[in-house]
C-alpha cells in the first residue's frame, strides 16, 4: 500500500505560537507530566540536542535559558483534529494517532488525483502554512515518515525501490521506539540505521526482546504496521472554567454534573447513552490531566454516568488545584436489550423470602442481610448499624 506521511514538525510549538505570537522569537520547551516526572513534549527547532520524552532536567542541563510551557493537550488535539477533518476531504483513509503525524492511504486516489504532484499540492493547500508541512510518499508508514522528515517544506520526497543507500546513514534516533531502546542502541555503538541493518536479527532480539525484531525490520526499511484510518464518530465536547480554583472533589463533581446534564440534552431524546468519556482538567499552573472512562453498558442518565465518574475521580490525584474542566463524549450507544417480567411486583417479596430460605437451607446459614439501626446515637461508627439476616 502506498502511504503519504504529512509531518508537522514541532506541532505543539506551532500551536503555542498561534496562541501567543510573542513566543516566535524565544526558545521554548513544552513540558508534560508522566507520572511524577516532567518530560519534554516538544521544543523550538533551534534547540539542538533535545528529544521528545526526554526528562526535563536533562533538557535544562543542555539549554538552561528557555521558556517552559505546560502542554495544553486538549488544545493541541482540537487544532490537530481540525487539520484531520480537512484532510478527510482529500482522502477517506486518514490516520492521526500522534500529534503532528498524519498518514494517508493513497490506494485508489489516482482516480481523483491524476498524479502525485496534484495530490501533494491538494494536501499542502489543506494544511495551514504556519505548520510547515513536510510530505513523503513510500510503500510503508516508516519509510513515508523518513521521506517526509527529509523533505523540505512545501515540497515532497518520494522513496521507492532499493532504499538501502538512503537508510544507511540515517540516525537511529529516527526509529519509532522507546527512548530507552534508542539510548541502548547508542551504547552498543549503533548510531546509524545501516549499522543496525548489517546485523543479524538474532543478536538484536537477544538484547531488545520483541522490539529487537522490529528495530531490525525498520532499519531494513520494512514496516508491517497497518494504517488505522480514524473513525468518524459523533463527539460531544463540553468545558467550563470554575468560578474559583479548587481542590475539592465536591466542587469538581458539581461542574461535571452541569456539563453532563447539558451534554445529555443533546442525545438523550434520541434514546442514546454514553459509552466513553474523555475527562480532562487543567490546573491553575496549566498542568493538564486526562482520563478516559469507559462504561460497560451505555449510561442512559447523567446520574448513572456521574456515579462512575466520581469513583474514578476519587482514585485519580489531580496535579494541582483545578481551574478548568472539560469532557469529550467519544462514544454514544444504545442500551442493551433486557427481558422484563410480564407481571411485575406480584408477590415479589414472598418469592424473594422463599428463595432466601432455600438458599440458607442449601448453604447452611444466613446469606442475605438487611441493615438495621442498633445504636444510631453512638460515637463509635461501627456500633450504629448491624446486619440482620433477611429471613429473620
Amino acid at each position, binding site marked *: 500500500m502506498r502511504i503519504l506521511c504529512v509531518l508537522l514538525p514541532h506541532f505543539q510549538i506551532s500551536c503555542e505560537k498561534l496562541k501567543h505570537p510573542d513566543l516566535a522569537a524565544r526558545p521554548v520547551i513544552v513540558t508534560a507530566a508522566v507520572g511524577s516526572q516532567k518530560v519534554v513534549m516538544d521544543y523550538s527547532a533551534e534547540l539542538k540536542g533535545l528529544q521528545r520524552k526526554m526528562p526535563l532536567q536533562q533538557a535544562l542541563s543542555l539549554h538552561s535559558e528557555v521558556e517552559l510551557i505546560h502542554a495544553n493537550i486538549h488544545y493541541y488535539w482540537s487544532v490537530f483534529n481540525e487539520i484531520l477533518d480537512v484532510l478527510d476531504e482529500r482522502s477517506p483513509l486518514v490516520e492521526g494517532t500522534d500529534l503532528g503525524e498524519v498518514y494517508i492511504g493513497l490506494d485508489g486516489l489516482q482516480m481523483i488525483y491524476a498524479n502525485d504532484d496534484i495530490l501533494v499540492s491538494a494536501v499542502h493547500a489543506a494544511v495551514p502554512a504556519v505548520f510547515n508541512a513536510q510530505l513523503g510518499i513510500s510503500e510503508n508508514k516508516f519509510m513515508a515518515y523518513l521521506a517526509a522528515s527529509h523533505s523540505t517544506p512545501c515540497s515532497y520526497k518520494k522513496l521507492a525501490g532499493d532504499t538501502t543507500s538512503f537508510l544507511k546513514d540515517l540516525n537511529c534516533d529516527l526509529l519509532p521506539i522507546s527512548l530507552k531502546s534508542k539510548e541502548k542502541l547508542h551504547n552498543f555503538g549503533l548510531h546509524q540505521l545501516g549499522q543496525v541493518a548489517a546485523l543479524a536479527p538474532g543478536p538484536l532480539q537477544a538484547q531488545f526482546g520483541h522490539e529487537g525484531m522490529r528495530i531490525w525490520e525498520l532499519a531494513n526499511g520494512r514496516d508491517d504496521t497497518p494504517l488505522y484510518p480514524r473513525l468518524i464518530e459523533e463527539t460531544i465536547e463540553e468545558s467550563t472554567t470554575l468560578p474559583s480554583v479548587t481542590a475539592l472533589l*465536591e466542587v469538581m463533581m458539581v461542574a461535571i454534573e452541569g456539563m453532563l446534564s447539558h451534554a445529555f440534552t443533546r442525545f438523550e431524546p434520541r434514546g442514546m447513552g454514553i459509552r466513553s468519556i474523555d475527562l480532562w482538567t487543567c490546573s491553575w499552573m496549566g498542568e493538564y490531566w486526562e482520563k478516559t472512562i469507559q462504561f460497560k453498558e451505555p449510561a442512559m442518565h447523567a446520574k448513572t454516568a456521574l456515579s462512575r465518574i466520581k469513583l474514578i475521580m*476519587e482514585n485519580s490525584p489531580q496535579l494541582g488545584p483545578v481551574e478548568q474542566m472539560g469532557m469529550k463524549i467519544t462514544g454514544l450507544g444504545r442500551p442493551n436489550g433486557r427481558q422484563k417480567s410480564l407481571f411485575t411486583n406480584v408477590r415479589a417479596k414472598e418469592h424473594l423470602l422463599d428463595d432466601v430460605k432455600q438458599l440458607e437451607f442449601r448453604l447452611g446459614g444466613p446469606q442475605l442481610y438487611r441493615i438495621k439501626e442498633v445504636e444510631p446515637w453512638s460515637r*463509635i461508627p461501627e456500633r450504629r448499624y448491624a446486619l440482620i439476616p433477611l429471613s429473620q
Partner: protein
Amino acid sequence: MVADTGKTLRTDTTKPVNLPEPLSVEESPAGLPVAVRLKQRQSLIAIEDCWRIDDEWWRSEPVSRLYYTVILASGQRMVLSKNLIDNCCTVNRIRRVLKKYGILPPSRKGD
C-alpha cells in the same frame, strides 16, 4: 399472646456494619497523616478537622481513637481514625454505601 414462629433465636447471626478497616497511612514526624495508600498512594492536601474519642474504658478492649477529616489529592474527603492503643490507622469504608442507599443520616463527627 404472640404466636410461636418456630424460629430458633440466634444472636450469632447478627453482624456489625462499617467495621474500621486497616489503612496504610504515612505520618509526618509530628504524627500527623501526610499520605494514604488506597489503590495508589495519594498525598493529603489538607486536614480539615481532628477529634478524639475515649470510650468503653471499663471493657477489656477500650476504644481510644483520634479521628481526622482529610482531603486527598484527588479532592475526595475522607475520615481516618488512628487507634491510639495499637497505633493502627483505619477507615470506615461502608459509610459511602450506606449514604448512597439513604440509610445514613446527614454527616456528623465520627462517620
